[in-house]
């Protein structure tokens, strides 16, 4: 294979390509204004809106726009990100008033004729620009005992689990702990004491795992005054979840499980 032959005749299977994908054409570009809510307590207690204008490609995402600002205009703009394709959960933010992952939101899907607003997610303390303190969020997560508890003497082979039992909690295993749901919940916004949908989703993942023995304890934890009963089924969480998890449904199932257990 080492010798690369380029003199061969043109293969027969050649097709015509659309201009924007072929050799000549350009990917469409457009100008956008990114309106970012800036906040840096080191320099000012006030937060303020700042506009950045730039030219972007049709395939760019909000994360690319933020990078362009950071890398070419204002290096002090701060936000979290890592994987850049929607699997790590770093960059949940409020884009045009809705919680989304910046790396999964294409600019062309937004109205680019108006400024695109970018704010930190609501309900968690803002640290700087788009960075919020995630500790309260993870604290809720930790409190639901998000790990398998099995009282059997540990087997040397794997435990068996039927495909249906495995399927039962499949949806809630997709969670990437991005906090888009919890920080979109109007009940969480009020005083931040509510466990929040993400914690309930992660409790659900174990409550309905046939291998787990501590479901009752988790139900007890969530049967709290800050637990599932605070959910008012507003569905913001379900709409915000970038992984498409049926969050409100999971919460409803947990509520029913508590009811079934208590009555």
């Amino acid at each position, binding site marked *: 294979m080492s010798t690369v032959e380029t003199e061969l005749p043109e293969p027969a299977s050649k097709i015509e390509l659309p201009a924007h994908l072929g050799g000549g054409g350009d990917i469409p570009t457009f100008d956008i204004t990114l309106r970012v809510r800036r906040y840096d307590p080191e320099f000012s207690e006030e937060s303020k809106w700042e506009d950045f204008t730039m030219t972007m490609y049709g395939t760019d995402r909000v994360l690319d726009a933020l990078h362009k600002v950071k890398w070419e205009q204002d290096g002090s703009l701060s936000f979290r990100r890592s994987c850049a394709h929607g699997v790590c959960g770093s960059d949940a933010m409020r884009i045009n008033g809705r919680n989304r992952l910046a790396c999964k939101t294409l600019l062309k899907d937004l109205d680019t004729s108006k400024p695109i607003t970018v704010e930190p997610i609501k*309900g968690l303390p803002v640290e700087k620009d788009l960075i919020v303190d995630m500790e*309260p969020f993870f*604290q809720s997560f930790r*409190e639901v005992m998000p790990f398998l508890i099995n009282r059997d003497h540990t087997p040397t082979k794997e435990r068996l689990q039927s495909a249906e039992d495995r399927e039962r909690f499949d949806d809630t295993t997709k969670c990437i702990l991005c906090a888009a749901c919890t920080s979109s919940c109007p009940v969480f916004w009020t005083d*931040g004491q509510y466990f929040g949908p993400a914690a309930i989703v992660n409790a659900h993942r174990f409550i309905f795992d046939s291998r787990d023995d501590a479901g009752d*304890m988790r139900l*007890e934890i969530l049967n709290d005054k800050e637990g599932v009963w*605070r959910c008012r089924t507003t569905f913001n969480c379900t709409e915000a979840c970038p992984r498409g998890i049926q969050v409100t449904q999971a919460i409803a199932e947990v509520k029913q499980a508590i009811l079934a257990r*208590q009555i």
Partner: protein
Amino acid sequence: MSTDSIAAPRSNSAQSPKYKRNKASHSSFEMFAWLFMRLSGVVLIVLIFGHLFVNLMVGDGIHAIDFGFVAGKWSDPFWQVWDLAMLWLAILHGTNGVRTIINDYAERDGTRMTLKTILYVASAVIIVLGTLVVFTFDPCPPGAVIDLPSFCPVP
């Protein structure tokens, strides 16, 4: 303002998760409140729609309502029970609803307590008052001259 910071969730609890949370003292009050909202809601639908229909839609609608109308209704134990049930359920349902709203929005414990006290007192007063009215109601009060129901003895 984005600078506002909030206490960590359930910030009075320990930093690290405690697995011995299975306290027997755990009450299921919130669960029963939640359940009550749904059950009372279903019953209320019937009661309130019936009430509205009879009062506003049948006959002359709202213009038919006067002392005689009410007195006529409450001379019938059926409507007495109906309205009493509606009163209790609606007040309890509404009170609990407003209680959640206060819990949601009143940030400081003091405010929360004050508002809830006002709420409970008001609700209690209304329930007692309403109940008394329905039970001690005399359809043919002595000395009244207008709008008496037809079955009253003519003075």
